[in-house]
């Protein structure tokens, strides 16, 4: 039989519907692939073998009766940030040791309602804080991609590094992920996969372990744009349990994929042209412009003047929210407890042992910027800057721009344990320079693999859209995917 793990999500779904293979077949194929690869790639932190096969059998029953849902029998990997009832949910952190929620996240519940099969939980940066997946308590995820002629381990990006690596290495048909400053789009770009961060409020945050509430959004990582559209259609939806979930219709995103870009106006923001940006990225960006033009889009230079301030504002807002969101990890109700002589001791020892260094650093920064005497100078100012960033986008959209094209990342994947990044936290933060503006403004953004660097590593382009206009991103993203025409399969070495 053909290797079922090599099919796209759409092909898998269609094959299952047609009865070409069973859900148990495809689930078993993925479980085997995980078994063979995970020791090396470390993409999964928990594999739900029995549950996966049970779900697959139930899917086969429904398929046999012609009752299958939109994702019936399709095996998915779930980022460890999503609560899955009775199953490992630890946000890549030591502090949630042994935590098995008594509840299911809204997004994953939607997927199971549509018939998807849960393969297991995917590795990630601790509490989604990181751009390389090296902050995970479960150790780094290894990128399935290697530079030509090298066998150095590369990072898959982060924080959804496990999701991106698993999708890229055929360890699931698609994965859920989350994006607070670029955590879907950057790893997608590093692994040659497609990642979309939908509009804030499109996917419910209920049951998703919070990092920074005003920025966090769930979205899919998949191997194709069409898969991305299919998976997001199932993940999205109004949830009355999340006050920030928007009561708007979820279109059939897949229907928009082949819509093309004819007549669309694409903006090219001059502020994204950074000094010292690698020539390959600059070239790829230009290439993207040409592809869109060739398909009938109008391309226009635009200005988003506050772009440069998005990252510094983010590094105030996100840690501030995180410092508060992570206060609940105190050794009282769940997870790790380190005994202490007093309650204060217990708190401090538990949190010192339970949080990794990057998380501690961000909690400290967040605590500092909210503390008495600093709140206005840091937090309030950052939230004002955020208003200006959002207004920049509103202005260009009002002037007729339909979507904005930018690079997804300032570089291709880098080596695990990169010394310069380890030494300077800000250098690591710069990974999100192109993606973070989108979170700050609550907009949708998609990263699509578009080319490769000199070492043969994938590079992505990002499209930014109007609020709740993910359809245009899928359509334009598909044009880039089709125009590039490249194979974004890593060479198997694991």
């Amino acid at each position: 039989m053909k290797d079922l793990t090599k099919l796209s999500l759409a092909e898998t779904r269609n094959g299952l519907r047609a009865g070409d293979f069973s859900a148990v077949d495809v689930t078993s194929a993925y479980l085997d692939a995980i078994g063979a690869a995970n020791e090396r790639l470390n993409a999964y932190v928990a594999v739900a073998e029995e549950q996966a096969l049970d779900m697959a059998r139930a899917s086969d029953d429904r398929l046999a009766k012609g009752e299958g849902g939109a994702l019936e029998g399709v095996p998915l990997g779930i980022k460890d940030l999503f609560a899955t009832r009775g199953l490992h949910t630890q946000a890549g952190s030591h502090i949630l040791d042994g935590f098995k929620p008594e509840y299911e996240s809204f997004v994953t519940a939607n997927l199971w309602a549509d018939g998807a099969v849960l393969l297991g939980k995917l590795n990630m940066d601790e509490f989604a804080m990181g751009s390389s997946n090296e902050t995970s308590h479960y150790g780094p995820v290894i990128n399935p991609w290697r530079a030509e002629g090298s066998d150095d381990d590369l990072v898959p990006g982060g924080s959804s590094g496990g999701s991106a690596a698993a999708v890229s290495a055929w360890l699931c048909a698609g994965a859920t992920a989350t994006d607070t400053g670029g955590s879907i789009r950057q790893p997608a770009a590093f692994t040659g996969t497609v990642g979309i961060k939908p509009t804030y409020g499109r996917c419910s945050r209920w049951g998703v372990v919070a990092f920074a509430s005003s920025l966090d959004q769930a979205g899919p990582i998949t191997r194709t744009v069409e898969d991305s559209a299919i998976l997001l259609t199932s993940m999205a939806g109004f949830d009355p349990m999340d006050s920030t979930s928007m009561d708007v219709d979820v279109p059939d995103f897949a229907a928009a994929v082949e819509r093309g870009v004819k007549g669309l106006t694409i903006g090219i923001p001059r502020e994204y042209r950074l000094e010292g940006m690698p020539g390959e990225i600059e070239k790829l960006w230009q290439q993207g412009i040409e592809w869109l033009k060739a398909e009938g889009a109008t391309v226009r230079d635009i200005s988003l003047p506050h772009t440069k301030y998005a990252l510094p504002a983010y590094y105030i807002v996100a840690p501030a929210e995180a410092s508060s969101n992570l206060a609940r990890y105190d050794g009282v109700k769940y997870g790790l407890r380190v005994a202490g002589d007093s309650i204060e001791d217990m708190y401090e020892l538990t949190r010192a042992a339970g949080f990794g260094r990057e998380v501690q650093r961000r909690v400290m920064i967040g605590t500092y910027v909210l503390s008495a005497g600093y709140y206005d100078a840091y937090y309030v100012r950052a939230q004002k800057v955020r208003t200006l960033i959002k207004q920049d986008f509103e202005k260009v959209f009002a002037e007729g721009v339909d979507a904005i094209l930018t690079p997804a990342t300032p570089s291709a994947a880098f080596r695990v344990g990169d010394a310069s990044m380890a030494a300077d936290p800000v250098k690591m933060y710069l990974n999100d320079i192109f993606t973070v503006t989108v979170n700050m403004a609550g907009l949708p953004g998609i990263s699509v693999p578009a080319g490769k660097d000199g070492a043969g590593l994938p590079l992505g382009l990002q499209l930014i859209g109007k609020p709740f206009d993910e359809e245009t991103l899928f359509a334009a993203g598909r044009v880039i995917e089709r125009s590039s025409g490249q194979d974004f399969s890593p060479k198997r070495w694991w």
Partner: protein
Amino acid sequence: MTILDTRTPIPDYFIAGATGDWEMVIGLEVHAQVTSRSKLFSASSTQFGEPPNANVSFIDAAMPGMLPVINEECVHQAIRTGLGLKAKINTRSLFDRKNYFYPDLPQGYQISQFKDPIVGEGEVHLDMGEKIGIVTVGIERLHLEQDAGKSIHDLDPSMSFVDLNRSGVALMEIVSKPDIRSSAEARAYITKLRTILRYLGTCDGNMEQGSLRADINVSVRRPGGEFGTRCEIKNVNSVRFAGQAIEYEARRQIDILEDGGEVIQQTRLFDPKSGETRAMRSKEEAHDYRYFPDPDLLPLEFDQALVDRLAADLPELPDEKQARLIRDYGITTYDASVLVADRASADFYESVAKGRDGKLAANWVINDLFGRLAKEGLDVTNSPVSAEQLGRIIDLIVGGDISGKIAKELFEIVWSEGGDPAEIVESRGMKQVSDTGAIEKIVDEIIAANPEQAAKVKDKPSMIGWFVGQVMKASQGKANPKAVNEILRAKLGL
């Protein structure tokens, strides 16, 4: 913020010290539990007295990924309360997080309203008696916030037990201005506030169950002088304790100041057993709550139409009711204040007084009925004598069917046996004798039997009372006193 002193010092309140007079300055923060079925941000029950953690959802226990959604009724109750306090209703308000660690605070923060509360400035009027008159206490603000859980410290020598049943129950924090100048005023303020809340049905005011708790800020100063340093006495849960705590605390501060010391701003606890306040150990360190807007919640906005609708449905409040009772029923200010102390008493009185002599009704309701109820530990809602029955008794008096004395007997019978007062009077022969022939006969007998007194009465007309008493006695109280008087006067030649 500069605090305005709205009061003129009242010498009656001054506390004599060794170095001269002192005056108290008091402000209160009252936490009133909102009457609602479910909690402020979750759909679990607010029912009192349930087993540990039975009224707790995953949201209240701050499980990872859980989110708040606000309860409409709690918002309405806060608006109603604001209207009852003649306060400004803010149609846009924000929820903030107040960050601190405590085992009964599962989120590690309390959702409260810091900068933009739902209700702004208002006022409460206290009737401090004839000499001092009406005192107006300013309300600074009212905001909605979550209650914490409960830690129980006496179940184990080294451990505390945490029950989150109260965690997330809605509270209204009602903050007064520092306009109170004596413990009597503070007691009157709490009592009045509780009356208003009960009228509105927005808080049951049950202090034993903790539905109403006061944090009391006390400072002392030279009469009319600069405000002194204050101490906050936390969580006082009875009106009486509030008075005791204030008296003790003021004295303590005066003693310190007169010894040349300085009052240290502190959080203190009142111990009802010793009648003293002591510094709280857990609150010794200066707090830095790091307030910031809760990113899980959007701004709370409603239009004036909602406020108007709730205002239209507001019940008559104690001050208005008191004015109306005085106006409509001609009763004294004092009687009216007793009657409006709670809504059920006022309602009872009105059903008795309607269409009858208001003063007579007030006498019967306040002196006879309330007196008797208090003796039996009952309240007006479970009175054995109904308003209808009491009204009939009054009708019988006014109609001349029974005398006031017989009426008391009749009241006792109705109290213990029930029944229709008119029928009881009829069947037990309690009806007053107005037949002048019968009375004349008795009068003749009495005069004949007491010639000496009959002779003296001409010089000393006040002795007629003695004759009336004798006639009434002889008639077993049934003779109409007015007729007896007239006949006696005629026969005795007065």
